[in-house]
């Protein structure tokens, strides 16, 4: 009956809605690679023509964004469209600024890579040199057929931001967060999500984070108003770390979770849309919409997100050109790596993620030689990358805090440390993995992985509150109560005013039979947060354990007031009332508990017993 399901701050979590044509069910008609082989091999017949040589590249690599209603500032579909930007296109492809694609080509391939061959790039200049000929219409491949509106068809649920954000005409980049109240009245399984950013020209990218405890709402000045900020810290549950990347970038096709995978959405969950917007030159109203697609099939495969990071090492002196930050973690179980998400701010220069396998060989997971915050994305591998137990996964990020870095937000450069603001820095590398069992008899590999990860964080930073808390929660779940109590106690020492940590410590103490100390910590939790349902509930149980039934009744009444539809609270209130002889009221509450949840066996048994005791 103890609820110490506590929530942990896991930062930046998301599920990519990036492209993934392979899994796209319906939606956009993406072309294969028309004529690509022609133009990637050696010589092309001269003159280079639009219909034969240029259109296939434009249709395959550019038009997905460069069509009406999409994120790009102009359309590239027809000969006239392309001709009126010909030199600009030649220049941006030559510099590999378009199509935007940060990772270097390597052994591991990503889904929907947007990388032109050298030959394709030179074709644009040759086309201009040859007089920008249109060519023979018979050579022109079919124009891509873009679906207007929702790309996966009509969503089951559409949510619109309550209030628009007013983006000024000019000035710095803007970071704004919209909170959506997930409109579900029971547990639902989310298969896909489409973010419609309003005018897509304005939003460079967006993340959705699942806020299971509505922890972000207090940041809004008024309900529905949204709030500013580049990075979010959202609390999420310990044994259910949000395991999906919910990421949107321009031109992306909504990502449909593969078989077995889905994101759990509970009642009272918030979805926080974190957007990065660039002023366009005119003032704009931005009011995004999110479409949700559900499945009735609950998830059976649970990926996890591992965050390599070393923000504590970020202390970059003004003028430093090659400031390096590293982190590495040895996997305690085999994993399949599905996707990767590198993250730094404006000083990031060279971002490398790599793995050292048990045999000593290394594998580049991702290498971005010229980081550009504007084109950050979640990158999904074309096939899962198996990393065996004992593999070290590592990041090495290099930062440039000199005047040479044109993206440097400080002129002149200033000392920069880790933080959530755009002018602070970050050093994060997220890996989405599926932990694997080596043998059926093995412990849950997710827990093994989480525990090892928490211990890794504590080694890096003994004062890491979250890591102590997470480790404690896992130890408790495994029944190692004494160790759990020690870790929770360390967490409470670090954050004495954290209501959740006090509540969880109380829960572990109560489970170990120490109701006296447990009661102290539940009271502390309630002093910090008087409307804390879990703490009232746990205190009620602790008081029951000390036979203080009147005290327990008071706590369970508070629970029922806070959550009128919680069957456990009703059942326990009924039980405590019965203990003090208040049978009539006890019966009401037990019946109410069974109304809410007819499967609550304990309440049913208690009710039966009560009926025996009550005068007929």
């Amino acid at each position: 009956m103890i609820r110490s399901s506590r929530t942990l701050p896991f930062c930046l979590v998301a599920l990519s809605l990036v492209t993934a044509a392979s899994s796209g069910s319906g939606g956009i008609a993406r072309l294969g690679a028309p004529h690509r082989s022609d133009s990637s091999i050696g010589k092309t017949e001269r003159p280079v023509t639009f219909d034969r040589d240029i259109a296939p590249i434009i249709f395959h690599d550019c038009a997905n964004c460069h069509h009406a209603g999409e994120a790009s500032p102009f359309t590239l579909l027809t000969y006239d469209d392309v001709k009126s930007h010909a030199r600009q296109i030649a220049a941006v492809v030559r510099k590999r600024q378009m199509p935007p694609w940060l990772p270097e080509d390597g052994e591991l391939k990503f889904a929907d890579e947007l990388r032109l061959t050298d030959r394709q790039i030179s074709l644009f200049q040759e086309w201009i040199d040859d007089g920008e000929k249109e060519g023979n219409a018979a050579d022109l491949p079919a124009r891509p057929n873009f679906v207007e509106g929702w790309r996966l068809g009509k969503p089951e649920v559409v949510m619109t931001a309550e209030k628009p954000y007013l983006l000024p005409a000019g000035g710095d980049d803007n970071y704004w967060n919209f909170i959506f109240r997930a409109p579900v009245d029971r547990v639902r399984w989310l298969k896909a999500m489409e973010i419609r950013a309003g005018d897509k020209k304005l939003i460079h990218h967006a993340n959705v984070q699942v806020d299971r405890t509505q922890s972000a709402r207090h940041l809004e000045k008024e309900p529905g108003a949204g709030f500013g900020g580049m990075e979010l810290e959202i609390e999420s549950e310990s044994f259910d770390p949000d395991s999906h990347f919910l990421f949107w970038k321009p031109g992306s096709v909504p990502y449909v979770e593969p078989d077995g995978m889905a994101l759990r959405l509970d009642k009272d969950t918030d979805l926080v849309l974190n957007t990065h917007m660039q002023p366009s030159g005119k003032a704009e109203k931005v009011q995004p919409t999110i479409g949700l697609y559900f499945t009735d099939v609950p998830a059976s495969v649970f990926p996890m997100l591992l965050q390599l990071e070393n923000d504590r090492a970020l202390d970059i002196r003004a003028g430093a050109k090659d400031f390096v930050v590293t982190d590495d973690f040895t996997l305690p179980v085999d994993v399949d790596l599905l996707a990767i998400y590198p993250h730094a701010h404006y000083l990031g220069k060279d971002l490398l993620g790599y793995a050292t396998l048990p045999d000593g060989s290394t594998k580049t997971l991702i290498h971005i030689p010229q980081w550009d915050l504007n084109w950050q994305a979640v990158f999904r591998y074309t096939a899962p990358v198996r990393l065996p137990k004992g593999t070290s996964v590592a990041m090495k990020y290099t930062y440039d805090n000199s005047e040479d870095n044109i993206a440097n937000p400080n002129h002149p450069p200033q000392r920069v440390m880790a933080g959530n603001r755009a002018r602070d820095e970050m050093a994060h590398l997220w890996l989405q993995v599926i932990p694997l069992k080596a043998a059926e008899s093995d412990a849950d590999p997710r827990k093994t992985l989480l525990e090892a990860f928490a211990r890794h964080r504590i080694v890096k930073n003994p004062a890491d509150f979250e890591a102590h808390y997470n480790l404690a929660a896992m130890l408790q779940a495994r029944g190692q109560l004494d160790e759990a109590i020690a870790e929770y106690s360390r967490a409470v020492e670090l954050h004495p005013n954290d209501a959740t940590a006090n509540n969880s410590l109380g829960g572990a103490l109560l489970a170990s039979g120490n109701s006296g100390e447990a009661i102290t910590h539940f009271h502390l939790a309630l002093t910090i947060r008087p409307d804390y349902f879990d703490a009232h509930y746990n205190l009620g149980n602790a008081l029951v354990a000390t036979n203080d039934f009147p005290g327990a009744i008071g706590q369970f009444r508070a629970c029922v007031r806070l959550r009128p539809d919680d069957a456990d609270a009703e059942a326990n209130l009924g039980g405590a009332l019965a203990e003090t002889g208040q049978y009539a009221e006890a019966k009401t509450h037990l019946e109410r508990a069974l109304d809410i949840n007819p499967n609550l066996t304990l309440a049913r048994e208690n009710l039966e017993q009560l009926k025996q005791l009550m005068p007929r």
Partner: protein
Amino acid sequence: MRRAHPRLILIVAALALSLAILFPAYSWCLSSSDTALDLSGKAVDPLKSAAGKVVVLIFVRTDCPISNRYAPTIQRIISAYEGKVAFWLVYPDRAETTDMIRKHDAEYGYKISALRDTEHALVRKSQAKITPEVAVFDASKRLVYHGRIDNWYVDFGRTRSAATTHELDDAIQAALGGRLPPVRVTDTIGCYISDLE
């Protein structure tokens, strides 16, 4: 009467000579094809319509994201020199209709006059290659600066957090003070006007 004719020629020749000495960079003879059209379709020569004033031509395009993102900066500069400098927005894309331009100017809050430079007469006169490029003509209508507004954009898709040099501002100040600007020509990041040929 017969004597008057050669004298007239002499006067003109002398005038031409003195202009050539004073204004070596300025080709002062405008033919009718050297004019642009205002939004009512009337031919306008922006260099003749503001006698004694510094003139700034700003080359823009409705679908050029870089010239669009410059709109607030352009407006700030316009309001800083209101009354002292004649500013014109110049649209070099023949395909952009007066309706498209009116809509664009309203959306981006432009209050100054716009010209359609369908024959690229002003493009040639300003030696403009890119949108958003600017051309500054001093009070004698000599081209004293052409190039970027400032150094905010470093490359396509790459901007500084804020500009650190302000070439248009510097050029206007110099022209108002009767001086030549410290920098006469700069390269601009943006959309190629030659793509509109």
